[in-house]
């Protein structure tokens, strides 16, 4: 029983680690303050669930979830191309609201607040994943692959260009670098992997509804990124473990179950405030929050 519970927590950690690492590409490495990342997570989850419900093989649905989220990333980046800082944050927050409203109201496609139940477990070229243990292995392999790709990107010359855009976009333009192109690509990469995380989530929980992808959840992902440190993949992974696992201790304290939710939010807020006060760069961060 305890091991099933621990495996469940581990799967959630893996999914949130992918979300945090992918958000770090946009926020930490490129300096795009994207508050709509949760929308890409939702788009990936819905895309994968709807496709597999319509008999599309899981492997194709998994890829499609990333591509679909990435296309929305492209759209968001194009719309917000001239914005930066607070204005970009507000615009991306608005995007998150719009996607949430679509999930809630396009009932023919998403079943609205009723959500989509009975999302089947993945079948990878004949290997049917049924147990939580095998799902953990599957999700971890995907996460490892994603982290490896993002690691290669951010440590390449291309990654240095993303950092140049973050540090001084005008300086990068003067060197002949197309910063709009870089911002759009960064947002697409970030959205792609968030979409993959969405698919992993939908097929693990087997039920999704819009409330899972409401904007309040972006606070958890942002807390992970800030605690781990901007522009640090290692930080995002370790912070995902801390931020997801720490509130679970509440389950072992004798408090009413109705209190657990609000207390969880309080823990996130306290961790965020403590980090911002005493270690603004996060655990492994290299850059300051501007």
């Amino acid at each position, binding site marked *: 029983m305890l091991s099933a519970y621990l495996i469940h927590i581990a799967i959630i950690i893996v999914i949130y680690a992918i979300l945090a690492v992918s958000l770090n590409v946009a926020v930490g490495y490129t300096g795009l303050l994207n508050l709509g990342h949760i929308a890409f997570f939702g788009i990936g989850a819905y895309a994968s669930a709807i496709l597999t419900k319509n008999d599309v093989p899981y492997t194709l649905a998994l890829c499609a979830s990333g591509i679909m989220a990435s296309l929305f990333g492209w759209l968001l980046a194009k719309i917000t191309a001239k914005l930066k800082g607070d204005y970009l944050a507000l615009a991306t927050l608005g995007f998150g609201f719009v996607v949430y409203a679509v999930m809630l109201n396009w009932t023919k496609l998403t079943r609205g607040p009723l959500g989509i139940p009975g999302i089947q477990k993945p079948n990878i070229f004949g290997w049917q994943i049924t147990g939580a243990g095998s799902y953990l292995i599957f999700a971890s392999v995907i996460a490892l692959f994603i982290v490896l790709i993002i690691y290669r990107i951010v440590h390449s010359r291309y990654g240095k*260009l993303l950092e140049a855009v973050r540090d001084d976009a*005008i300086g990068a333009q003067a060197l002949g670098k197309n910063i709009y192109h870089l911002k759009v*690509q960064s947002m697409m990469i970030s959205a792609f992997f968030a979409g993959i995380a969405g698919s992993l989530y939908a097929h693990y929980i087997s039920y999704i509804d819009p409330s899972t992808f409401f904007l309040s959840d972006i606070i958890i992902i942002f807390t992970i990124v800030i605690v781990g440190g901007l522009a640090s993949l290692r930080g995002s992974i370790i912070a995902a473990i801390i931020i997801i696992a720490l509130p679970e201790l509440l389950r072992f304290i004798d408090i009413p179950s109705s209190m657990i939710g609000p207390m969880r939010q309080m823990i996130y807020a306290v961790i965020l405030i403590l980090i911002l006060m005493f270690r603004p760069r996060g655990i492994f961060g290299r850059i300051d929050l501007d």
Partner: protein
Amino acid sequence: MLEIQGIKKSFGGVEAIKGSNFIIEKNKITALIGPNGAGKTTLFDIIAGFTRPDEGRVLYEGEDITDKEPHIIANLGISRTFQQVRLFKNLTIGDHLSMVENNGDMNLIKNIFRKKKVKRVKQETYEQVLEDFGIKQTLETHINDLSFGQRKLLQIAMALQKPHKLLMLDEPVAGVNKVIQTEIENLLLKLKEKNETILLIDHDIELVHRLADHVIALDAGIVICEGAPNEVLKNPKVLEAYLGE
């Protein structure tokens, strides 16, 4: 090489440039002088594509570049520095010098599979650049660890390393100590010997006198005088603009 035709630019209700016309000739150093607020940096920004003019055109080697994006203009061969140094504070000197080249760094897929290690030959080239410019630091040094003067030198080194036909330097010696000022001046004199085409903004009249082949004086957004340094620097209109006499 570069022709400015009837450029006008206003910011809000303030006219920064009121219809400027001039030509930058190839293989010469042209200095753009004028008091603060004369519109020198605005003109630089218009040429480099960072600011769109309200009227007028910028022709570069006969091509209209007025509405082109800054990165396109930079890749056409117009290399520039900024009055306030624009470097990337979290990156190293080596990262900066590598970025100057058109080395396929914009290609995402190629970069995922490329070997990370910088070739030894490249590293030696970059180290030579540091030596040539008197920057006594390693390639791994972060920009935050450089003095203002070293940053200014690195910015000039980058502008020069970038393949270019026209070099635009915005107050290259402003704010640096005497030693670095002399280093930069010597460097500019070497560039003059090599017949580089340079457009230079500077307030140091003596420096302009020593370096420039041609001087254009701006005041309140219009060209008040242009010609050889001797003539322009003695022109009553220029003296009045600078000294208020």
